[in-house]
């Protein structure tokens, strides 16, 4: 699409798809605008006062015309609706990604945590050609994570994880912006997405001087907050084992079932004994809301995630 004047760079798989949809819509918009403006101009000239145009057989109403143009334009736009809805689901229900990165927003900065424990602020390094899934949360107000070159955006809410994915197709530095008004320095809550070739990215990861992965840091916290007292396999307390929990189907106390994803784990930690905990256990878990910050929550969740991976590997 770069041949179109003023067209923004597209640097991800999804950007190209969204551009196609936009072009399709623009074409339809131009056709309809041309029709309406064209008719207005033609009628305006032809039927101006004093012109000799024939004004007999005035049509006051024909359902044929009204229904015709309505159904016609609606059908055209419904095609676009289906196209757009499909793509939306594709973007916001991420397929299994090559890389998962946690992003925490706060006034007025973006903090990213890589699985290996690398942290950055207002920058996000990602490898070229790999699908990257982001898990976003906020420490204060609603923000919005927007990378114009990738055509992706999602609001970042305090108190929950939001998620979407992208797959860069070009190396370079791309603008990251906050698009939900968040206070005085909203305009400066930006950053850069750095897309690097995979080998360079691997090298970048190693020179960050990090010794512990996110999950390892989470394990330490798991002890510090006393989680291990009950959830350790050797514990005498009847608490659910966390090995293999992530990604499994859980039967809840309220009779429903859910998949134990990041959001679920996060809610369990924060809410403690409530009806969203797995069925069959006594309601003794304390609620950690207000005691564990977003940074630590991410590590704990990453640790529980890693337990599932090691179990899968050992099986």
């Amino acid at each position: 699409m770069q041949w179109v004047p003023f067209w923004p760079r597209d640097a991800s798989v999804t950007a190209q798809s969204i551009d196609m949809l936009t072009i399709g819509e623009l074409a339809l918009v131009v056709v309809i605008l041309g029709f309406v403006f064209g008719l207005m101009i033609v009628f305006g000239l032809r039927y101006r006062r004093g012109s000799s145009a024939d004004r007999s057989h005035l049509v006051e109403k024909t359902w044929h015309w009204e229904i015709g143009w309505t159904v016609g334009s609606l059908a055209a736009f419904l095609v676009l609706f289906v196209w757009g809805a499909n793509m939306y689901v594709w973007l916001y229900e991420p397929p299994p990604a090559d890389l998962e990165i946690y992003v925490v927003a706060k006034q007025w900065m973006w903090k990213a945590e890589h699985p290996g424990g690398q942290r950055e602020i207002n920058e996000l390094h990602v490898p070229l050609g790999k699908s990257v899934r982001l898990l976003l949360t906020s420490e204060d107000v609603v923000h919005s994570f927007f990378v114009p070159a990738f055509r992706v955006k999602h609001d970042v809410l305090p108190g929950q994880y939001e998620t979407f994915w992208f797959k860069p197709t070009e190396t370079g530095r791309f603008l990251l912006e906050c698009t939900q008004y968040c206070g005085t320095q909203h305009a400066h809550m930006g950053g850069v997405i750095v897309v690097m070739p995979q080998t360079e990215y691997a090298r970048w990861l190693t020179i960050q001087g990090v010794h512990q992965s996110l999950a390892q840091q989470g394990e330490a916290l798991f002890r510090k907050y006393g989680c291990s007292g009950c959830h350790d396999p050797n514990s005498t307390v009847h608490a659910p084992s966390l090995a293999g929990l992530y990604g499994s189907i859980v039967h809840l106390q309220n009779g429903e079932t859910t998949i134990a994803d990041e959001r679920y784990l996060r809610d369990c930690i924060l809410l403690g004994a409530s009806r969203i905990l797995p069925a069959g256990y006594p309601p003794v878990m304390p609620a950690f809301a207000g005691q564990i910050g977003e940074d630590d929550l991410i590590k704990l969740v990453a640790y529980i995630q890693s337990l599932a991976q090691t179990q899968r590997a050992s099986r």
Partner: protein
Amino acid sequence: MTTLTADLPTNYLTKEHTIASWLLTKDHKRIALLFFASITFFFFIGGFAATLIRLHLVNPAGNLLQPDIYNRMFTMHGIVMVWFFLIPSIPTTMGNFFIPLMIGARDLAFPRINLGSWYLFNLSGLFLLYCLFVGGVDTGWTFYTPYSTLFANGHVIPAAVAVFVNGFSSIMTGLNFVVTIHRLRAPGMTWMRLPLFVWAIYAVSVVMLLATPVLAMTLALIAIERWMGVGIFDPSLGGDPLLFQHMFWFYSHPAVYIMILPAMGLVSELITCFARRPVFGYSGMAYALMAIAVISFFVWAHHMFVAGISIFSAVVFSLMTFFVAVPSAIKVFNWTATLHKGSITFDAPMLYALGFVGLFTIGGLTGLMVATLAVDIHVHDTYFVIAHFHYIMVGGTVSAFFGGLHYWWPKMTGRLYPEMWARVAAIVTFLGFNLTFFPQFILGYLGMPRRYYAYPPDFQVWHVLSSAGASILAVAYTLPLLYLGWSLIWGPRAGPNPWRATGLEWLTSSPPPQHNFARTPIVKAPPYQYNPADGSYVAQDGSVHA
């Protein structure tokens, strides 16, 4: 006023002269003029804020205003323009003045409530001015939580109270119209003989009645949350910020239709009158107005596609949004078809009306782009959306407002305005408007987020173009103030029906007497019985005019 109309028979302007006779009036025409004064005042306050914003954005570093001041400016621009100009604009002024005249009534059903509505409006305006003078508010007009309740350092509570009180003013006006249109129609004025402007005001009043209380409650909750320090929408206290957004948009999306529906009705009057032929598909137009009013309640979460609502609900709301476009499309096509085989003159009201149709169509079609889920992900909260809704609200509603103002000016004041100046103003408005807002579509797609006081230098050229357009627009909006003011004193006298239009409002003298009609008119004809072939028309009382 004495000098203006001394030689005319007694009318609503000359009946009484004391200040009390204005401030305590129960005459809907006088109350309409009071509202005119109030909303014009607020239009220029909001316009002043817009001017500062556009001046500020000429420079990418954004160093004209302090960041906090800039944030307060766009918030003030939004709040003032939405609740203190656009929503009351057409209903409280032209609706108030012409609904009783058009249905052949002597007044609205509840004149005291009508006057009360004006006082509440001004009370809410005082709250807003208080908020402005003590330092303003910086939440954006959307008051999103938890920013507005916990983090904002502006004066959120007075602003919320202002909008709360303003809501009741709008409810009172809507209630009055609904009941009046149901109960006070002249004999023979059946529903299918109502002018489309009356239909539009009816539709909009229903929306006002049923949507505004939800906003009132939502803002009350915001004010209480901030004041008491409790957590109604605060996630750290168990609240759900998206619940606020649901409730806010449940009002604020229909509110967009509160702004545009009266404009649609008004433009229907103008186009049919100046094309000198019956409106194409009258019943379709009337039903479309009602359909828009109802369906507008099903689409609110399209403001929340990237906000974290469930994917399934996003798909549902997107689909509903495509459906609400259908009645709007019917209207656009019918306006266009109304030109067919007409005998068209291009007087200023007609120029405004045609401008409305064009700009509204652009705004509506880009609205469908924004309603498409995947495209919205990219353009949401960018200048693309800003451009889209300004095409609807400014290009649409404000154009129609000026069109109606010119059309009915002779009836309201008894004077004709200078036609040439008015045409110039209409054309300059159209050009200035497009120069202001078309670049913003491009800016938005390039990735310029809204509510930024500073931006990457690449975007500067578009911002400069937009600001240049805004300065033209400022001139175009000030012009009418000058020449209409001029016409009050030096304008030629207008007869009862200078446009040779069919509505009942043209059957009485200009300006109308205190209780509108010497004798209650009997309605014998549908509206818009113009004959383009010979220029004759049948007024709604059945009288034939060659």
